[in-house]
């Protein structure tokens, strides 16, 4: 019988820390080849239209930046959470609440249109996301309630709340029967970066700035050290005088505020009004981005671009080869699986053992 045996490495393998995401990517592509062959599509052409074609044209590079921005911004916040061992999986809800809170100004007071509009919207968006994230954080620190489940439940609540707003009180009276708010005034929109070649907007710049700032926070400040210590050993953290409860609140507020920033940037950027289909699962895909980027904010930038490519590739492959764009979601899930599996190589050596029970009697 063949068995896999794990042996703990004396220290984390630096080599595999770098190689593991690449290996995971290669395995995902391999799975793609198998899947496309099984579906009777030429695998080379399918992979080309998935992963290369969107990169060959200027306008689609712009679209890549648009899709990548929210993924990166959310994932950077999730890095803080996951490194400190706080499992916020409700970023999708915080994204929507940020979008709602930020949209309140242009929807309810469209006549307030001046240079202060956009900064105020962004501020409100971040507060909205942070407030929504504060709920699971406080329920965890005050009442010991599992943050995984509470943060996720609040996603559904946020979706329903958004649905009610855009069909009810915030619906555009001139919007025929379509749910959605009025289109924002020009002062409430994020400026486009290079309007001549495509519609990428300031959101992508936010993503890069946020990634560098949080990277600095995590690697160069005492707070970053606190995040890591409490994440790896809460006991050691308490001896150092760090408070796990305060860290939980901090991590959730940071990631909630960033998810909210992503939300308002998406509304004020690509969509330009609030509607019920605002998110295409950014908050969940960002979880994959965070892990693929090795919980490093700079890694999240690369990973975010890659996952954005799977969204675009899904659309491209649907048009050129008639492959369902639902495959994109399956690809994303598979990628996370391979990333987690390959990460084992960082901590453990894996050995195949043949034959039966060894003399030491191990399982």
């Amino acid at each position, binding site marked *: 019988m063949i068995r896999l045996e794990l042996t703990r490495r004396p220290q984390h393998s630096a080599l595999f820390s770098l190689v593991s995401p690449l290996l995971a990517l290669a395995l995902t592509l391999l799975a793609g080849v198998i899947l496309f062959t099984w579906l009777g599509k030429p695998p080379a052409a399918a992979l080309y239209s998935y992963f290369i074609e969107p990169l060959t044209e200027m306008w689609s590079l712009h679209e890549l930046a648009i899709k990548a921005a929210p993924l990166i911004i959310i994932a950077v916040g999730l890095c803080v959470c996951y490194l400190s061992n706080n499992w916020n999986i409700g970023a999708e809800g915080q994204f929507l609440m940020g979008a709602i809170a930020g949209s309140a100004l242009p929807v309810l007071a469209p006549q307030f249109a001046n240079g202060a509009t956009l900064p105020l919207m962004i501020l409100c968006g971040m507060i909205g996301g942070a407030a929504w994230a504060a709920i699971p954080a406080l329920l965890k620190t005050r*009442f010991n309630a599992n943050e995984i489940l509470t943060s996720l439940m609040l996603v559904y609540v946020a979706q*329903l709340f958004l649905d009610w707003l855009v069909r009810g009180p915030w619906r555009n009276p001139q919007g025929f029967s379509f749910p959605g708010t009025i289109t924002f005034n020009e002062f409430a929109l994020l400026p486009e970066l290079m309007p001549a070649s495509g519609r990428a907007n300031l959101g992508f710049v936010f993503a890069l700035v946020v990634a560098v700032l949080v990277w600095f926070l995590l690697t160069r400040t005492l707070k970053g050290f606190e995040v890591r210590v409490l994440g790896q050993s809460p006991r050691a953290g308490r001896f150092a005088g760090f408070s796990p409860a305060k860290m939980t609140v901090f991590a959730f507020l940071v990631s909630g505020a960033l998810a909210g920033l992503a939300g308002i940037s998406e509304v004020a950027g690509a969509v330009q009004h609030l509607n019920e289909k605002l998110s295409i699962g950014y908050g969940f895909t960002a979880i994959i981005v965070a892990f693929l980027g090795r919980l490093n904010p700079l890694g999240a930038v690369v990973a975010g671009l890659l996952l954005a490519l799977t969204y675009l590739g899904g659309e491209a492959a649907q048009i050129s080869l008639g492959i*369902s764009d639902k495959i994109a979601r399956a690809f994303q899930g598979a990628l996370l699986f391979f990333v*987690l599996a390959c990460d084992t190589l960082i901590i*453990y050596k894996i050995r195949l053992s043949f034959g039966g029970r060894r003399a030491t009697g191990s*399982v």
Partner: protein
Amino acid sequence: METWVAILLTVTTAATPLLIAALGELVVERSGVLNLGVEGMMVMGAVTGFAGAQIFGDPWAGVALAIVTGALFSLLFGFLALTLATNQVATGLALTLLGIGISGMIGEKFIGIPGLRMEPIFVPGLSDMPVVGRLLFGQDPLFYISIALTVAVVWFLFRTRAGLTLRAIGDSHGSAHALGIKVIRIRYLAVMFGGACAGLAGAHLSLVYTPQWVENMTAGRGWIALALVVFASWRPFRVLIGAYLFGAITIMQLHIQAMTLSEMTFLPGAIYALAAWVKSVPAQFLSALPYLATVVVLVLISRNRRLTMMNTPAALGRPFVPDR
């Protein structure tokens, strides 16, 4: 009276998938493994259950396919979390995301096709009894299975040696390993049982609850099942109570949304006034009730830290790598 029976019948229909999925996860967690992939396994069960019924023309074929799919799908989680000792929280999430992705892909050609419904089984004689007859003896087959499963899980966990072993592993995998118990092998079996249950629960959704396929049709029920296990302090009979409580909340809000005020006149005065008030609340707020209730229940149950610590399997979520 007829209306009450009809309402209570729908409560059991809403509670059954929650009960089955939560029972499976309870066994998994009792063995010390936290599989957050319930939602993903359930949605895979829903789509394969629907597909199996369509292809073979028999809902039972769908049920069988869903159970097998759920168990096989959970093996992906098992391989990572048990053999490769990955982080269980992240791996469970990955399973959910993958399940939602793959089920969407498989199910695309089933969207809009009317499904096959599993017909209720009437126990001759007994089902003619007033009120309880229909409720206890005139239900869909999966209802009977869910009740039998509850009893079986209680019996297995607390009355058999294998159950004792499983609980021992969940509390201290190190000690169990030292006693020569095959920790990983038993955990694999537990994870597969959880997967089979989640698959069956999914099949209930697409063959009994709403016989059709809609993308992502589990709508968070897998997560509610996870919360139910915490709510029940890892005890099977309390899972049963919790599932019916949640079934009631889900169904009450649906009924209030669907009924007109004149249809509610059978209700006693105070409840009628309450229902009339609730009807003035936007539908979305009512739909949010089961999710909000989950949050509230989690808070109430976890508030007492010592009690929670006592009930939680001590090794829950910790990866086990045998020493060599």
